[in-house]
């Protein structure tokens, strides 16, 4: 009968509503919960690119099948990177734990998990750095914020550094300019040395290495996919477009994320590129080899990112083009703008990009020889080279999401907005703290756009979704524009969860809707084959 003797107030006291761990963060082990992490890599994909410890593995299992001397591998790698990259050493040493970054991370804001505060996430690694690479850490241990490298620590690293999208919002607020994304890159690189990759990243890396794009599309599939778009464009405009593939001697090579070829709504953005280039009569070519603007190698190791990036330039050389235009992509631009030059540049065999339509020289791309399509299009509009009818987008009330990589990684803030304002009549900004260099991440970048971690993605995307919700309720926003393939895919899902009714579009879908093409038939529908405003009854 003992179990019935408790009084109601004692029973209530047994209910614990608090999630505060009873132990210090160093002593609180990480718990792997389903829907918050990505599946482990397949051995075959690691083998293809020569990554170490190639085998199938699962983060949920106790045994990660690590090499027996994994601790030494990590230590050697830390030592090597510290000597190679001064920035890394500096970032380790100068943090004073002021906490300015603490509440700036979308994963922290959305999850409430303190280990997602950038300062604490970095401490997960910094505590090891102190223990093995600083005198106070060696002598005073825990008193100096140091701890031993154990399997538990490695698992904690893996869990939390794959909950950082390297968006760099925290860096904007750091008084010392510590780039937390670089710390995440380093730790991911260490996990990479132990074969601790995710399936969602390593699959695309292997595909890209063999076939030139993340999806593993072969040349004929790329071509037939684009032909489908051409059929749709013909239905909508009456114009048959005939783009070229792998054409030597073209003036421009066009490279876009392969997601644009298959993942809706990116496909409409891709149709937008095709229509714009046709209208301009641009001398350009697609490549079925350099058929990926993105670079998932960037989420594994510096070397792998460099190898994948090289394919674009090797193809540009082979085709003999003058310069490269890149499609609407996010991390592709961080790679090009911040890393390409030291990896594979300067691309002296190419020419400084000069618009054949306006004559504008893009000095900003002097060494990379690659420009973002919104730079190209904004310049066309500014020089009155396009005939536009923005009323065709009148059913859309648009807001713009800055991709972390294009805004913070290359300062592309005005061009997309300038284009949208010229092709749409209804545009509203989200609140100031959530856009431009302070933009909130979609929550699914750096290879976190898998399906099995959906719960995590909804946490990371929460601040962005709440800002969209605000403009939806205030202005009736029903379309979220952006210039990133991952955004196009994942923001659609984010909106479906938090803000049903808000759809997602690339900027060039809006451009193509408004673009009045020579010889087109009267347009009845937009690119999604929905009636244009005023043509609903047609």
């Amino acid at each position, binding site marked *: 009968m003992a179990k019935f003797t408790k009084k109601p107030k004692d029973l209530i006291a047994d209910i614990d509503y608090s999630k505060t761990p009873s132990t210090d963060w160093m002593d609180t082990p990480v718990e792997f919960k389903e*829907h918050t992490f990505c599946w482990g890599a397949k051995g075959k994909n690691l083998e293809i690119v020569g990554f170490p410890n190639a085998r199938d593995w699962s983060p949920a299992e106790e045994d990660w099948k690590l090499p027996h001397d994994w601790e030494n591998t990590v230590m050697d790698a830390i030592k090597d990177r510290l000597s190679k990259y001064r920035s890394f050493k500096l970032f380790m040493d100068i943090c004073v734990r002021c906490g300015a970054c603490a509440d700036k991370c979308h994963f922290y804001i959305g999850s*409430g998990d303190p280990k997602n505060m950038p300062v604490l996430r970095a401490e997960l690694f910094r505590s090891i750095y102190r223990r093995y690479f600083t005198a106070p850490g060696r002598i005073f241990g825990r008193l100096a914020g140091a701890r031993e490298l154990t399997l538990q620590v490695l698992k904690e690293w893996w869990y939390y550094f794959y909950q950082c999208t390297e968006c760099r919002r925290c860096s904007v607020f750091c008084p010392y300019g510590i780039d937390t994304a670089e710390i995440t890159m380093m730790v991911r690189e260490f996990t990479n040395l132990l074969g601790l990759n995710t399936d969602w990243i390593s699959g695309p890396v292997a595909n890209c290495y063999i076939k030139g794009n993340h999806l593993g599309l072969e040349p004929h599939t790329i071509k037939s996919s684009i032909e489908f778009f051409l059929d749709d464009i013909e239905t909508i405009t009456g114009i048959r477009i005939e783009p070229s593939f792998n054409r030597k001697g073209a003036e421009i090579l066009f490279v876009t994320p392969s997601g644009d070829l298959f993942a*809706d*709504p990116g496909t409409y953005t891709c149709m937008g590129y095709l229509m714009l280039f046709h209208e301009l009569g641009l001398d350009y070519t697609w490549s079925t080899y350099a058929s990926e603007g993105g670079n998932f190698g960037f989420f594994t190791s510096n070397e792998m990112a460099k190898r994948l990036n090289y394919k674009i330039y090797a193809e540009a050389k082979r085709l003999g083009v003058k310069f490269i235009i890149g499609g609407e992509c996010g991390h592709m631009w961080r790679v090009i703008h911040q890393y390409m030059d030291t990896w594979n540049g300067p691309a002296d065999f190419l020419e400084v990009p000069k618009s054949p339509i306006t004559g504008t020289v893009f000095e900003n791309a002097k060494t990379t020889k690659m420009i973002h399509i919104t730079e190209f299009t904004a310049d066309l509009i500014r020089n009155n080279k396009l005939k536009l009818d923005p009323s065709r987008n009148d059913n859309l009330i648009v807001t713009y999401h800055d991709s972390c990589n294009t805004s913070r990684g290359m300062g592309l803030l005005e061009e997309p907005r300038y284009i949208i304002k010229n092709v749409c009549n209804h545009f509203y900004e989200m609140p100031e703290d959530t856009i431009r260099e302070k933009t909130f991440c979609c929550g699914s970048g750096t290879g976190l756009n898998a399906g099995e971690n959906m719960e995590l993605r909804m946490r990371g995307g929460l601040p962005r979704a709440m800002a969209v919700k605000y403009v939806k309720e205030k202005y009736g926003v029903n379309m979220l524009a952006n210039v990133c393939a991952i955004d196009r895919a994942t923001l659609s*899902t984010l909106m479906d969860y938090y803000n049903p009714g808000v759809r997602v579009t690339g900027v060039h879908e809006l451009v193509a809707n408004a673009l009045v093409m020579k010889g087109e038939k009267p347009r009845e529908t937009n690119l999604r084959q929905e009636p244009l405003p005023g043509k609903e009854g047609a």
Partner: protein
Amino acid sequence: MTVQSLLSEKKEQIAKKWFELVADSYPSQTSDFLKSKKNQFLNPVGFTLKEGLSGICNELSLGMDESILKKCLDDIIRIRAIQDFSPSEAISFVFLLKKVIQEVLPELSEDAKEYVSVMVEKIALMSFDIYMQCREDLFEIRVREAEKRNFRLLQVANQLMELKDERVNDLVTGVIDNEKGKG
């Protein structure tokens, strides 16, 4: 004085205390953040909790309008359904309301306590439904995303001849109708 007027008189105090207790269901550093950061866009969880809980408190003294309650609960639970909470933890905040009212209005009559109890039960039952709807939405969006990813591949492979239904149309236009979970 009726229970409704008592609740109406103290609604702000109840909402404030309730919010603090709910914020305390997060780790201590986060609880401080949720309570102190005022900007709604930089602290969307704190803002949503505060707004939602106030909205519910307001309804306790009014007519318990189901659509308003549903919206307030959905805003809160949609967030807690994807945070690191078990199902019971995610909706535990509802039951804290009883505790708060007891503390703020200790002098309530037995009848009034019974009224509060029934209200909390009603809110709890609605919360079960909303929580389940959020979790279903979570899995639904995952499936939809996978479908969108493969749609064009299927089209290229000419596998869509038999699938020309509304669902395919939805996939093409990107229109999603999962308003059912919304108030």
